[in-house]
């Protein structure tokens, strides 16, 4: 399961970040394996998603959210 599949207010633990050109961007924002992630908001029409990770709110598009693999 990836972060894009979370439903609103649902939490999970990050297992890994998929390797890509922007994996470093995830890491530097503190999106790290082992952290809790919770889906707060979704913009309409398949727009960006807002996640809560350790008191920080991070906005990602769905194409970025699928790069966050979650522990089931």
């Amino acid at each position: 399961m990836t972060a894009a599949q979370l439903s609103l207010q649902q939490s999970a633990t990050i297992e890994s970040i998929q390797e890509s050109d922007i994996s470093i961007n995830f890491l530097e924002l503190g999106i790290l394996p082992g952290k809790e992630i919770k889906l707060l908001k979704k913009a309409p029409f398949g727009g960006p998603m807002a996640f809560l990770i350790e008191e920080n709110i991070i906005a990602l598009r769905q194409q970025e959210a699928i790069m966050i693999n979650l522990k089931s």
Partner: protein
Amino acid sequence: METATALQTKTVAIIGNPNVGKSSIFNQLTGLNQKIGNYPGVTVDKTVGFLRIGEKEINLIDLPGTYSLYPKSEDEVIAHRVLNGLGQEKPDFALVILDACNLERSLLLGTQVMDLGIPMAFVVNMKDLALKKGIQIKTFDLYKMLGVPLVLTDARNNEGIDAIRQLMATEKFESPKPLLDSYAFADKALVEEVMVRFGFKNPYQAFQMLVFGEFDKTLPLADKQWLEEKSLAFGFDRKRQQVRETEARYVKIASILKKSVDRVKIESSNVTISLDNVFLNPVFGFVVFLGIMLLIFQAIFAWAAFPMDLIDVGFAGLSGWIYENLPPGVLTDLLAEGIVPGIGGVVIFIPQIAMLFGFLAILEDTGYLSRVVFLMDRLMRPFGLHGKSVVPLISGMACAIPGIMAARNISNSKERLITILVTPWMSCSARLPVYIILIGLTIPDTLWMGISFQALGLLAMYLLGVLFTLLGALALKFILKTKEKSYLLTELPIYRLPRWKTVLLTMFNKSKIFVLEAGKVILSISIVLWVLASYGPSGKMQAIEEEKTTVLQTTPEADWSTVEELYASKKLEASFIGIMGKAIEPAIRPLGYDWKIGIALLTSFAAREVFVGTIATIYSIGGDVENELTIREKLAKEVHSDTGEKVFDKATGFSLMVFYAFAMQCMSTLAVVYRETKSWKWPILQTVVMTGIAYLAAFITYQIFS
């Protein structure tokens, strides 16, 4: 008396994550003693502040906010170059601002700076907020483990600023031991070769060079190729090693924080999350956004009109004063008609620029701006734009200049370029006087279901602008090529009250940049236009002047102003720009324009609203050119001398409006586009393509209505 030699000047670079309060601290320390310049070859502004503590002069370099020292944008490249003294003198010290609520993340950058080996100190900001959240920092333990002096501050409330001053005065900076061993991420032989070639004393500097080399546009090509070859020879995989480095860093940071920070769980209501329930609501969120945008639009459009009128009147008064008080001659003419109006043409944009950036600073400082990106991203993407393109485009409805300057926040270079290129198609306020006159001439003042046809006409012009802005973006999306992938990975910071000092400083600094940078180009083009409009082939102008003197002698004084107007028009016709107007007549005939309109098109290049003044001169309409009604009545009576048909009929009027909607006729915008893209390629392309499309569209419009 102090002598300059007694002063000791030290340079301190200040760096930190975005939203960590870095600019707050910088502004508290330096106030208005700031200088904004440019780093060569990039669009990043170089902000240096100056402060004096006792005998010591300190130059504080404000580096752009960044989460790490990885090459992702020009901001990081600049941080890397400054901290390693590449292309400039290396700062004596570094001051790294950490977020007390986010120590783990801010230490990622903090420990990277540590590893560079520059003497440094940490400022742990927002200590109050951290306490409220139940985060207790054991300062001494943290200091012992990092080996770097720490200052705790709450910059918003001006707490701890004196301690920073004290620290700089006594130079209590320390060169820490590196946190990571750079040889674990790159071959030792490779690192040593880089150190020798670039004269580095520290292996992490060499590692950074290997990582940044490919992205540093200002690095000599020979160095770049050398780095590439070496990386290849040693099998150094930049991306892979960066990820490894980051992971190793986070492991070390976690172990440090485990021993130096206590967390007490405090159950508190989260204001930010509750506010987001409204601001990010799929319905209310857009309503609030629309309301805020209307307010800003209203401000730039209506409230700025008052100071702009004052500036207008002031500069006209100054020109008049110069005429009355200086001896007549070419220099006085140049001053009164070329230079003063030229400067006036720059200054007149300041109210709009200051207001837009004031509002943007408030929206950014409160944390709302990132929410706009969140809401609008999905709607902008089909057009090749980013959520961050919304603000530039909307401000383009008042004036394209601050809009284009605001496009700097877009990190993807293609999306940023598209935004810059299409923003001038949004209907700016300079087009309004042109539209109002032409609509008055061509559309009947009748009502349809209680709505004025003229108002509908104006609305249509605005919608045309929006439509073509989006279509233009869509076309550019397919034309421009980039390897960069578009992504959105952004923090939505907590909501805060705006800091008024920061807001005012932003307004001041942005206006200053515009005046100093774009002002030069605008002023020089104004002078060229003035010369073209005041001089013609020798003899011809002189003859008109002599003829006027003879005619004046035989006319009663009461009619002098009519004669003056007539000869002003004749002189403009005989001037170089008049000749150019006639020369382009065959080209603009198919659009329904005569050479007189041609002259107005040429002078409009200074700014669109100049159309009104030029038309008034060329048709020798005296009196108050600001009075649109007088001009309109006069123009309505103008007929073609050969056919006797009205000059400003529906076809010509519509065609002109369409031409003004699309053509690139604003040198101030071009100057800003040059500044923001660092290349004349884009402003020239913009002029050619936009004016070409304007020509085509005006041609079609004229053929339909004639």
